[in-house]
């Protein structure tokens, strides 16, 4: 389940908290909201045969908070601006034609934005660098894509964290698009720490990854496949464990936690189409809100979002897997 959750207190209280000076780190966690009604906002994508399904209402949805059904309101995204942050893997493996395609994809993303939206660019190798801050100056964002240069390691976890924090810098509708092969080699932050930050965060993450090609291509030759499998088992025995098939698991996990998606492409040639599609799809999410009832006011809450009235085996509902309260 993937999606997006906001925890919102009364406006006045939220403003007062935001204005307070940052406290010295404490060993005991203090509540984020001290008073007022608390509403949980979820953004949800419904697809039918992989195409966004629109026209649904509040009554079509069922939300379970830690298994407890909740009463749902509905808010549309039509009027909410988008903050779109692109985090681009600029390590050694992204060079030449790939970099050109990435630049084109950046332009396609900018072209899909509308007035009122903002965009930002983070480029990363082993260093995490700001290409463009969140800005409505789309020309500046496009220039950031054009100036991107490749070279170095891959600090995927560090860059993801920076993008998540940048995305939650205001309460807008924030999307982080990460382009990477999903293999971190340089970060200081640990994988689990970044996933944990994503759980506490309101940004939706879409990962875009190029499928890994095998070193040895056996094609469909049964004999070669059998030989490779035999060799692989021997190699795994020497290694000490079975080796999974390659997959950008970090990006998959991020998508699941945040309500986004992973887009895997065979090559970077049509990356521009994918980036533009992500922006368009992001606008077509439903925003559900509810005031939690019958559940704890603190800690991690597991969320399930289902459709009550629409059925079909090709219908999928993507929503965030949970949220931290208190």
């Amino acid at each position: 389940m993937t999606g997006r959750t906001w925890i919102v207190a009364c406006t006045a209280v939220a403003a007062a908290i935001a204005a307070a000076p940052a406290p010295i780190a404490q060993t005991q966690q203090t509540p984020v909201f001290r008073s007022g009604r608390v509403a949980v906002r979820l953004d949800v994508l419904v697809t039918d045969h992989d195409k966004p399904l629109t026209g649904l209402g509040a009554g079509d949805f069922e939300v379970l908070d830690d298994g407890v059904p909740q009463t749902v309101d509905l808010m549309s995204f039509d009027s909410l601006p988008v903050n779109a942050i692109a985090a681009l893997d600029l390590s050694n493996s992204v060079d030449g034609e790939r970099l050109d395609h990435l630049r084109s994809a950046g332009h396609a993303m900018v072209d899909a934005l509308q007035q009122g939206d903002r965009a930002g660019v983070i480029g990363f190798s082993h260093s995490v660098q700001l290409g463009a801050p969140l800005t409505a100056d789309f020309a500046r964002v496009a220039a950031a894509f054009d100036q991107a240069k490749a070279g170095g390691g891959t600090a995927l976890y560090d860059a993801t964290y920076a993008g998540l924090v940048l995305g939650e810098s205001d309460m807008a509708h924030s999307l982080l698009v990460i382009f990477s092969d999903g293999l971190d080699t340089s970060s200081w932050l640990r994988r689990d720490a970044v996933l944990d930050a994503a759980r506490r965060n309101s940004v939706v993450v879409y990962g875009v990854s190029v499928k890994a090609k095998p070193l040895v291509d056996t094609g469909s030759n049964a004999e070669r496949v059998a030989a490779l499998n035999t060799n692989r088992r021997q190699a795994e025995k020497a290694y000490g464990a079975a080796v999974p098939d390659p997959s950008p698991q970090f990006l998959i996990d991020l998508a699941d936690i945040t309500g986004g998606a992973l887009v895997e492409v065979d090559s970077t040639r049509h990356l521009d189409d994918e980036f533009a599609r992500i922006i368009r799809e992001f606008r077509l999410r439903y925003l559900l809100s509810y005031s939690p009832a019958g559940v704890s006011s603190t800690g991690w809450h597991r969320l399930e979002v289902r459709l009550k009235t629409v059925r079909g085996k090709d219908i999928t509902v993507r929503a965030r897997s949970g949220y931290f309260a208190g």
Partner: protein
Amino acid sequence: MPLPRLVAGLLGAMAAAAVAGAALPPRAIAAQTAPARKRATIATTKQLRGTIDLERVHNWIAAARAHQTAQFDAAATAIDRWPDEALAVTITDVVDLTRMVRFLDAIRTGGSDGPTLTHRDRSFALTPSARADGKAGEIAVLDQVLGLDPSEPRTPQINHLLELGAMLHTDLGARGEASSNDLSRAASLDARRPKRMGMLDGHVVSIVDNAQHWAYARFLLDAVGGSMATPPARWQDVEPDPSAEAFVARWYRATSAWLQSQGRWADADPQMAYGLEIFPEDARLWFYAGVMHEIFATSQIQQAAQEMIRSGFVQQVHVESNELDTAQQDLRRAVTLDPDFAEAHLHLGHVLGRQGSHADAIAELMLASRTIAGAELQYDTRMLLSREQEATGDQVSARANIERAAALFPRAQSPRLALSELLHRGSDPLAAQAPVEVLLQLPADESARVDPWWNYTRSHVRDAGAKLDDVWRQVRAEDVR
């Protein structure tokens, strides 16, 4: 210290079929009470049946004496063209000749049997019988072949020749090798011949033929040693002991460090293994070995190794948990041998942290922090301490160490990220934004925002080049001709 770039390296690999399921076993620590240690060997299909190609021996010795420090000069060029088989046989012959000289030198005042060397055409033939009165003539011939001065003690001369030969092959081994970037060839490679996979940023990017020069160098240095008090019954049983030779110890340390600095894991692993066989009490070698396994446990090495495994290649890296276990074992040995080895405590602390032993990690890192020298290493220690302290719930100490690290390198990105994550996890996610905003304002030029963490896996061999230069200076200082 140069900024890190790629995470490059060469992992040793063989097609699984060639290995027939036999893994490169985790290296066992050489027990102090173990019998004869494993000696360096080189592969040759020609067993020494008594015929030595004198011309090849002469040419090899001439090249070893003529070769200049770390240059690919005419001497090195000439030897580099030799086929592996010819090199292996010739080096074996040279070593055997030195053993014969040692043997004859030791018995020439005695009356025990030994081999008779007969000069036949341009080669030597060995016959089983011997006569004591022939020894002087035989040793004179060997002096001539090996270029020894009979008026000077032979042992130092032999050692020097072997050391020169080892340095020739060290320089040849250190050269970049021709590689193929055509990975489609991987499936058609000769499975009988070991390969090395070049890797970059966690991906396998090339295939490199496995040259033997490091093995030749080790083999030569295994024949270095002092004079024998009592020779064995046969010259074939002469086994000098290099463990008392300062040059050999420095060579293993310097080359182990250099190979690691270049990411040449395929060669670094056996280099340290053999070094530790000879010098099991060398804390520095245990340190290098431990850090190597610490690096083998990192994601970039594990990912490259898994890529090779999926293609059916047995390679030298083991699963992450096993590598961390070996790293801990080796680093503990280093700090046991040298309790003041601050850098070993640092890396041991990191390994323990990765294994989830946070309290033990903190203890090691605190030991390191008391004496570790240099801003980069102090930074590493503070950052790793902060991580372990956060893991134990000590947010206050964690934050203090992050800030101390940031004070050492104000433009490093890792402390900003660490502080932000600490705040994000704690009571104030809003405050977590400020450090990230500072991070994202850092200059694009990496030389203006150095982060020692980028170099953590190379910092332990930061002086590798200088160490190797020292070894060359030592061997040249011992030139007697």
